[in-house]
């Protein structure tokens, strides 16, 4: 599904990803944990072909084909979806119009208005996403939690094959987090081949969406890979404790 090999990425003079490797197969859930400023969020933007980052070497393959050099929208249409850490607001671009345009970008014939509204309203209700926000500018006047719900709403409507959840729990209170994770788990149940990459600082979210693989990332590089338990070991010892890296099995 997603395979990143020896990826080196810079912004200006600054190296952000350093010989980065990961391999995620269909139906697998991976989590990357790491301290702030370690390049976790950069990773999702690089996968989406953001032009602000320069790929110096290495490759990103999706379903066996390199996606380096593709435009962001092309990568998205292949089935890659990122739920962003801080989704921006776009004044004037009405949320429903945006969602409809995004759906239609993947279809030959435009979605019928009735079908669209039914689907949108049904999914918004499941997520407790306020209806008035559907008819407002994208994320305009929305709280952090509402923005995150909008990300998940988009995911459900666009039905991606591969999902990156970037700091999903930031800005979400516990009830909203439960609701959002319930939505994602439902989606994964109905789309069992979906690959998932969770990027997080705290392990809390991993209690709701349980990964099979946990990677610890420091300074643009995965320094340790383990199972679900690694997340809690990291929580106990902190990122700076090098004993985690030295102990146990290391897949890298």
């Amino acid at each position, binding site marked *: 599904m997603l395979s990143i090999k020896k990826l080196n990425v810079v912004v200006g003079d600054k190296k952000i990803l350093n010989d980065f490797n990961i391999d995620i197969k269909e139906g697998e859930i991976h989590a990357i944990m790491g301290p702030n400023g370690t390049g976790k969020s950069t990773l999702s*933007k690089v996968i*989406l072909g*953001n*032009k*602000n980052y320069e790929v110096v070497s290495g490759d990103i393959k999706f379903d066996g084909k390199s996606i380096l050099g593709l*435009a*962001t*929208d092309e990568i*998205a*249409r292949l089935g890659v*979806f*990122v739920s*962003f850490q801080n*989704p*921006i607001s*776009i*004044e*004037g*671009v*009405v949320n429903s*119009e*945006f969602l409809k*345009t*995004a759906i239609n*970008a*993947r279809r030959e014939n435009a979605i019928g208005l009735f079908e669209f509204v039914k689907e949108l309203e049904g999914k918004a209700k499941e997520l407790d996403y306020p209806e008035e926000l559907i008819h407002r*500018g*994208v994320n305009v006047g929305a709280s952090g939690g509402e923005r995150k719900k909008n990300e998940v709403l*988009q995911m459900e409507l*666009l039905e991606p094959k591969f999902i990156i959840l970037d700091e999903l729990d930031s800005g979400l209170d516990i009830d909203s987090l439960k609701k959002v994770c319930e939505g994602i788990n439902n989606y994964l149940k109905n789309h069992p081949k979906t690959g998932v990459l969770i990027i997080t600082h705290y392990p809390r979210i991993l209690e709701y969406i349980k990964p099979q693989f946990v990677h610890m990332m420091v300074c643009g590089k995965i320094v340790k890979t383990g199972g679900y338990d690694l997340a809690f070991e990291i929580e106990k010892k902190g990122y700076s404790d090098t004993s985690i890296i030295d102990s146990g099995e290391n897949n890298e």
Partner: protein
Amino acid sequence: MEIKGLNEKNIKKISEIKNEEQWVLDFRLKSFELFNKQEMPDFGPKFDLDFNKVIYYKSQDQGMNTNWNKIDNNIKCEFQNLGVIDSEKYLDGIGVQYESEVIYHNMIEELVEKKVIFTSIEMAMKQYPDLVKKYFSKIVSSADNKLAALNGAVFSGGSFIYIPPNTTLDRPLQSYFRINSRGMGQFERTLIIVDDNSHLHYVEGCTAPTYTDSSLHAAVVEIYVGKNSSCRYSTIQNWAPNVLNLVTKRALVSENGVMEWIDGNIGSKATMKYPACILKGDNSSGTCITISVATKEQQQDSGARMIHIGKNTTSTIISKSIARLGGNATYRGKVDIKESAINSKAIVKCDSLILDKDSKSDAYPTNICRTPLSNLEHEATVSRISEDKLFYLMSRGISEEKATELIILGFIERFRQELPMEYAVELNQLLKRNL
């Protein structure tokens, strides 16, 4: 019938064709005198304009009708293709001007019963001379500027609307102006009177096909808003890129009156247009929401003027400019809160979106507040299409082109909201063609 060139003889000929009363001819000649005394505006776009090469009058000699079937079939088809005839069902009344003359005018029976008058200015001068004389040229005088004087000398066509006291119209009245001939000038003169406690929404549309010779559109619009009354004037000009669009629009607002200009400038080679509200009555308010889109070889010089005279008056100017492919979309506006206008409030908000490095968007605001008891706010932004927004939209699979279109339409959403539904759809089509 066609009259080309500007001189007293031609002005008299226009008056003769229209079979006008002496006072109208006198007004024309006086305006011509004032035209000769005034200089062209010393600001705004520069262009070559030879007043003697303009056709000042052209008509089909068919008179004004209330039935499309009586109108020349070619012209009828043209308006059919423009969608004008179909739009009539959304309106309470419609007037259509082709070249110099109003060829079609009709309104629903109910308004006739309410004693609403909606006709051409010439008809009104004949049928309601006292009413016309009371207001005509009182808000925009021919001494105001050279182009208003030109209009005074050669005006032809335009709407006259009178809304009697205590009358509310459920749907808009609309006029549609079309220039069809090469080198043609259109000089309509519109006078709207909304008497006390009444409400009107008036919609104006205008187009012209493209010719290589310049055409000139120099209109004057005068609006009188009575006590406790409101008037909304919505227009999108989509003149061909060879039309010089130099228009004077002004409203005088009485106590508790509300005037709203919704003004879109998409076409024309050069536009100079600054709809104004003179807030004379206490508690009166004025709004102007304007967009201008300037693309290749286009200069949109537009904005608004708000003159506060009465107490507790409020005004809002929202201007949205978009420039691309070397176009120039400039905001030029004036807010003047006079000493008498205590407890008043004015807000000016100008946003421009520049799509490439060859394009320009300037702002020339003049903001004067002559009393410490009032408040004037000015806010301006200049932006390019934000990369973050593009990236976000594209990350959902939307192409760069489509994402740009969504952002541009979003930028002028505030304007689109104010348009009647059919017009908002038409605007989208126009913008898609122009951007």
